C-alpha cells in the first residue's frame, strides 16, 4: 500500500507489530481453498467470501450528485450513525444502506423530487431518519439554544464588566499613551526597547 500519510513513527510501530506477531498457522481453511482452485479461476476471486459482502457494479446513476445529496441527508438505520451514502460505500457488511439506496433510486425513478423523496423517508421512519433535526417546532431549540447561550453570556459579561468599570469611576488614569517614536540609538530608544523586552518576557 502506498501510504505517505502522517506520523511515520506510527507506521514503524505498525511494522514492528507485524514483526512481533504470534505464529500464524500456515495452512488455514482459506489458504487451502486458494490452492485447490488456483488453476481454473482466472479473473475470479479464489475466496469471494473473504472480500466481504458481494457487491453489484456501481453505475453512474448510483453515484449521481442528486443521489449523493439525498443519501447524505438520511441516516442508515443499521445503527452505525452514518448517512446512507457513507455507510453503503464504507461498511461492507451492512445490508441496510444498500437497500435504502435502492429505495432512493426507485423513488427518484417514480418521478419524485428530492424533497418528496426525503418526505417519503420521513413518513416511513419518522424524523430520526434525517442526519439533523428538521427545522420546525421544538427542533428549533437545538439550533437556537447555543446562540441564546452566547447572547446571554455576552450580556452577562458586558453587564458585569460595565459595573466593574463604573465602580472604578473617575480618577483612574488610563494607560499611558505613547508619544512619537524616539530617535534610533538614543537613550530614549534604549529605554523603550527595555520596556518592550520586559513586555515580551513578562
Amino acid at each position: 500500500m502506498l501510504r505517505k500519510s502522517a506520523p511515520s513513527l506510527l507506521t514503524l510501530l505498525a511494522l514492528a507489530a507485524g514483526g512481533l506477531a504470534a505464529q500464524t498457522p500456515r495452512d488455514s481453511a482459506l489458504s487451502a481453498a486458494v490452492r485447490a482452485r488456483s488453476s481454473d479461476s482466472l479473473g475470479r476471486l479464489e475466496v469471494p467470501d473473504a472480500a466481504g459482502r458481494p457487491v453489484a457494479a456501481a453505475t453512474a446513476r448510483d453515484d449521481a450528485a442528486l443521489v449523493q445529496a439525498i443519501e447524505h441527508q438520511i441516516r442508515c438505520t443499521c445503527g452505525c450513525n452514518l448517512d446512507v451514502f457513507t455507510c453503503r460505500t464504507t461498511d461492507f457488511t451492512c445490508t441496510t444502506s444498500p437497500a435504502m439506496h435502492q429505495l432512493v433510486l426507485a423513488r427518484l425513478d417514480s418521478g419524485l423530487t428530492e424533497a418528496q423523496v426525503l418526505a417519503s423517508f420521513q413518513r416511513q421512519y419518522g424524523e430520526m431518519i434525517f442526519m439533523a433535526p428538521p427545522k420546525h417546532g421544538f427542533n428549533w431549540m437545538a439550533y437556537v439554544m447555543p446562540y441564546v447561550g452566547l447572547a446571554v453570556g455576552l450580556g452577562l459579561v458586558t453587564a458585569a464588566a460595565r459595573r466593574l468599570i463604573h465602580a472604578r469611576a473617575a480618577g483612574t488614569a488610563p494607560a499611558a499613551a505613547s508619544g512619537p517614536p524616539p530617535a534610533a540609538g538614543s537613550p530614549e530608544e534604549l529605554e523603550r526597547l527595555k520596556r518592550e523586552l520586559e513586555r515580551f518576557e513578562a
Partner: protein
Amino acid sequence: MTEIGNIALWITLLLSAWTVVVGFVAGRTHRPELARSAERSIFVMWGLLVIAAVALMRALLTHDFNVEYVAAYTSRNLPVFYTWSAFYAGQKGSLLLWALVVSTFGSIALVVNRGKYRELTPYVAATLAIVVLFFTATMVFASNPFERLAFTPPDGRGLNPQLQNPGMVFHPPMLYLGYTSISVPFSFAVAALLSGRLDTGWLHAIRRWTLTSWLFLSCGIVLGMWWAYVELGWGGYWAWDPVENASFLPWLTMTAFLHSVMIQEKRGMLKKWNIGLVVGSFLLSIFGTFLTRSGVISSVHSFSQSNVGWFFLIFLVLAAVLGFGLLAWRWPMLAAETKLESLVSREGSFLFNNLILIVIAFSVFWGTLFPVISEAVRGTKVTVGPPFFNQVNVPLGLMLLLLTGIGPLIAWRKASPENLKRQFLWPVTAMLVTAASLAAVRMTNPWSIVAYALAAFVVGTVLQEFVRGTLARHRLHAEAYPVALLRLVGRNRRRYGGYVVHLGMVMLFAAFAGLAFKSEREVTLKPGQSVDVKDPYGDTFHITHQGVSQYEQLNRFVTAASVDVLRNGKYVGTMKSEKRQHLDSLGRPTFEPSTEVAIWSTAREDLYIVFAGAVQGTEEAVYKIVINPLVWWVWYGGLVLAFGGLITLWPGAQGPTAASRRRAEPAGYVAQVGA
C-alpha cells in the same frame, strides 16, 4: 496470579475507603499523623493496583482463556503488540487502567508537592481516594477483570480487527491519561474549597497538571482522528459521534481554564469561574465514560454497554454535588481582588475567549443530548449528526479563531488606541490580503474564505510577537537572531509555547476549512480500466485498476485491490486497498472482513481509495475514491500543537508570575520558581 490481582483490588477498595475517611479527618483536625497515613495509603494503593495490572497483563500474555476478559479480547494468534493493547480494549481492563493511572498521578502529585500546601494535601489524598474507590468498587461489584469462566475455551475471540491498528494502541491510553490527570486539579480544587485556602497557591500546584491533562487530551483526540481516518474507511476523521464529543468537551473546558487562570494569576480575578471550570472538566471526563458505558446515547463506541453506566451516573451526580456544593459554600470567599479596567484589554479578550469556548462546549453537549431531550419532551426520536454540529459550530469556531489572534495583541488592564494600531496593523493587513487573494482565485465558499483570512490574521499576530521580541533582544543585547529567538522563548516558555499552540490550532482550522472542497465518488473498474478524478485545484488523477489478489498474512486472509495512479500524466505510485478477513489460531474466520484504506497524502490533498468490494466474486472492483484537501494539516497541526504544549511544560520554564506569587505569599505557601 489472577487471584492475587483480585485480592489486590479488594484491598485497594478497603484502603481507599480508609483514605477517604482519614484524609478528611486529617484535614479537619490538622493531625499530621493522620495526614501522613492518608498520603501513604495513596502510595500503597498505587502498589496494589500495579500488582493487579501485572496480574491481568500476565493473564493476557499467557493466554489464560479461563479468565473471561482474556477470552473475550485476545486469541493465540493475536500479535503481542495488540495483546498488550487488549488490556484496555474492553471495559473491565480500561477501568483497571483508569484506577491505576489515577493512583499513579495522585502519588506523583503528592511526592512533587511534599512539604508544600500542608493544609491541602490530606484533602487532596482523600479526594483522589474517592475516585479510586469509585473505580475499584465498580470493578469489584460490577465489572471484574479477573472474573473466571466455568470452562476454559481452547482459544479466545480475538481483538476486533478495527482495534488492531497502531492508532488504537496509543489513542485510548492518551485519552485515559488526559481524563485521569484531571483528577489531580479537581482534588486540589476540592481541597482548596474545603480548607478555605483560596488564594492562588492551589493554582500553582495544579498548573502543570492542567497543562498535562490538556496535552494528553489533545494528543488522544488527534490520534483518535488519525485512527478513524486510516482504519474506518469512511473518508473523514471526525464524525461528531457522541463519544468523540465526550472527549472534546473536557478539552474545551480545559482550554478555557488555561486562559482564564492567567487572569487569576495576574489580576486576582475569576476565582469562582476557574474553580467551576476545573470541577466541570472533571465531571465532563466522567460524563464521557458514562455515555460510552450506559447506552443512553446511540454511538458506534457503545459496544460495551453494561450496568456500570449506573455506577458512573451516581458518581457523576455525587461529584457534581460535592464540587459545586463546596463552590457555593465558599462563594463569599472568592471575590475578585482587583477590578476590570476595560473590556479592551487582555483580560477582556480572555473573557470573550472563555465565553466562546464554553458556548461551543454547551452546543456540543446540547446537540449530543438533544435526541434524549426530544424523546422526553415530544416522544419523538431525532438524529443529531454532523450537519447539525457543523452548522452550529462553524460560526462559533471562527469567532474563537478571531479571538485567538486578538488576545495576544492587547495589553493587560487597558489598551490605548496607539497600542491597538501598532499591534493590529500587520496582522489585519495579512488577513485582508489573504481574503482578497482567495476571492481573486474564485474561491466561492464564504466560510472557507473567512477561515483562511482569520488564519492569516492569527499567524500574523504570532509571527509579529516572535519577530518583535527577537528584534528587541537583538538590539538591546546584541545577540544573533537565532540566539535572541531561543532566549526569548526560553525566558517565557509559557507565553511562546502558547503561541506555538496557536499556530497548531491555525493549521487545524485550515484543514477543517478544506473539508468544504472534499469530493467523493464510487466507481466500478475491471482490470485495466481507468477513471479520471479532478481535484479542487484543477489537477486530474488518472486511476487504473490493476487487479485483485488474495493471500494469507499474519493472522488474516487478505483480499487486495491495486490501482496505478497518475497525476496530470505523471506517475504517482501504486496504491493498494485491502479487505482483511481475520482468522483464529485454527484458521477459522473471526469477525466480519475489515477494510484497509489506501492513502496518498500531500500537504495539498489526500487521495483516499477504498476497495468497496468485488463484483460477483470477480476481479471487477468497486472503489470509493475521495479527494480530501488539506488533511495532512490535521496531523501536523496536532504535532505543532503538542510541541507548543511541551515547550510550555518543559522543566525549567518559569513558574508562577511575580504577581501570582505575591497573591500566594500572604497565605504562607512556598511557591517555587520552576516548580
